[in-house]
């Protein structure tokens, strides 16, 4: 008989961290594996389609997204303007794809900068250990305690300067996740025999970091960078939507949606539908690809980067 009153392990059972490890996504059953593959294919297909659209549209007779035409203000979708026009008569189809290009480029820049920053801080913190480590981790806690969008808004507000301010505001708020992951990786690498071998071979601390630790954290850092992409898109869009992000003449998705906000109230629903759909499709595609990739490489690290 099952003894229902068996005492559970008392103390130390940190239920907060307890999660079933590889139950759903990591592809245990065949159905799950198929779903996983489907997600990857769908994500890649979406991304390719969007990129092709963004790159080829100007050549395929797309209209100039900056062309203002006050004779055709807020036109609903028609053969000339497949997705209608905005409040300045600009073609929304070309403008949205141009916006997607801007948003993705800015997001990629932000992801690279914040991953580099996070990898640097994480490596230094993990490799030096001791007081430096403790201090750095307290700083990471402090940054994480401020809602990221709010800290981003503070930075953008105080350094109003267009692109650079936006990149700084996103990079300075998003490096903490990468720093944590990289630090954990460095700490576990430090226990490995090849590091001991290098040290007993007379390698200096700097050499160990440069030759042995940094190359080993590259895969983790790369996944983090890709996983940061949707966050960065999200942040840039939110900032631009609030009127705090990219300058209004740059057609980013956030700017288009911010402009469209007034037009929606006037009944022009098409000003926000297409930009929203493309934004969501791009975000979901990138995060789908990135999380499938991560599940394959490191099945345990599932929940560390969630939006």
């Amino acid at each position, binding site marked *: *008989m*099952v003894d*229902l*009153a*068996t*005492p*559970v392990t*008392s*103390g*130390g*059972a*940190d*239920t*907060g961290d*307890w*999660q*079933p490890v590889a*139950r*759903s996504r990591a592809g245990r059953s065949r159905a799950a594996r198929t779903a996983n593959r489907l997600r990857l294919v769908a994500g890649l297909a979406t991304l390719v389609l969007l990129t092709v659209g963004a790159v080829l549209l100007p050549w395929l007779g797309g209209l100039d997204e900056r062309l203002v035409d006050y004779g055709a203000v807020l036109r609903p979708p028609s053969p000339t303007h497949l997705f209608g026009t905005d409040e300045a008569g600009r073609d929304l189809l070309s403008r949205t794809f141009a916006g997607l290009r801007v948003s993705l480029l800015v997001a990629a820049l932000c992801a690279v900068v914040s991953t580099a920053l996070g990898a640097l801080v994480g490596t230094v913190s993990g490799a030096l250990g001791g007081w430096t480590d403790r201090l750095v981790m307290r*700083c990471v*806690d*402090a*940054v994480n*305690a*401020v*809602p*990221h*969008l*709010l*800290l981003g*808004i*503070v930075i*953008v*507000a*105080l*350094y*109003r300067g267009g692109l650079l301010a936006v990149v700084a505001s996103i990079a300075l708020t998003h490096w903490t996740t990468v720093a944590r992951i990289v630090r954990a990786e460095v700490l576990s690498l430090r226990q490995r025999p090849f590091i001991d071998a290098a040290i007993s071979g007379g390698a200096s601390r700097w050499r160990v970091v440069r030759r042995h630790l940094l190359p080993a954290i590259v895969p983790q850092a790369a996944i983090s960078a890709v996983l940061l992409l*949707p966050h960065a898109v*999200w942040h840039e*869009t*939110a900032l631009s*939507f*609030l*009127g*705090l992000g990219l300058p209004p003449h740059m057609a980013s998705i956030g700017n288009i*949606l911010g402009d469209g*906000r007034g037009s*929606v*109230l006037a*009944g022009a*629903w098409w000003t*926000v539908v297409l930009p*929203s759909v493309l*934004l*969501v499709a791009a*975000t*979901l595609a990138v*995060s789908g690809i990135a999380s499938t990739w991560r599940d394959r490489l490191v099945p345990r690290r599932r929940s560390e980067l*969630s*939006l």
Partner: protein
Amino acid sequence: MNLADGPTPSPPATARQPGPLAGAGRRRRARAVAALAGRRLAFAVPVLVLVSAAVFALGAASPFDPVKQYYGNQIFTASQSDVDRVRAELGVDEPALVQFGHWLGGLLTGDLGHSRSFRQPVTDVIGERLPWTLLLMCSGLAVAVLLALVLGTLAARRQGGWLDRVVTAVGHALEGIPPFVLALGAIAVFALTLRWLPVAGLTDAGQPATFSQVTRHLVLPASVLGVSQSPWLVLHVRQSLLSSLAEDHVAGARARGLAEWMVVLRHALPTALLPFVTLVGARVPELVTGAVLVEEVFSWPGLASAVVKSALSVDFPLLAALTLLATLAVLLGSLLADVAVALLDPRVATDG
């Protein structure tokens, strides 16, 4: 032995400690939880100091000149002596550390400075707007938690069924939809097309803030905030209920022939909900972020839309105060969640 014959169905083994937790033990437990809360509060102080120092440093290093903002276009016609007097009054030429000391001293005595964009003291702005923000955030969180409990439970009840598949798919899709897109969509559908609910604001134009007015205007922003926060919670409840349904004590409850709703709601759900409490506490930052966007779209007169206004007009005193307030909310959220988990689950160590 017939398991169903027991005098009372024994409680889920993992949810309560075996044996009665008698008076002395309970008191000791309460003291330990109080000590945990105290330690966490003490830990919050350095974080707050660090955050305020960082925000102040950002402000001090900014190329933005408050004196020029004070004057606006009149800086070109103002006499140098007047400009110097204002410089001295605003104290912008003092060393940064002295300024930081003044500011921190002001924070501790409750003097948060003067908001330039609202033309009133920062404390007044916060006092006027905090209740509306709390109302919106609490109702949004309530919507999200309710959705999570109902949909998560229903989805986990029949894993792989149509409801489960719909909930999971919609949840994953919603994770990628920003709150302001959701808000614009909700306005377009429910306010403009169906005309069920008002578009924005706290009341109709010129109306006093009566209960019915505010409730009617609250429905849309609170639902949007709740729905935008719900996918993580729904998927989490589903996942953790699925794993707790596979545990021994649930199999035991089934074996004793208990009704299905009793097994799910009384035996599986309680163990599944402990991590959920922690998750809800940890999602305060996202709740604040969502509130900023939702309040802005719906012109809700709360603190989060004041963030946007103060940022657009570079109103540093208000912006800094609101950042600190949000940080405090985040720290309080995780503290409350930890205390709740420690009180609910005697297995959780309180000395960590």
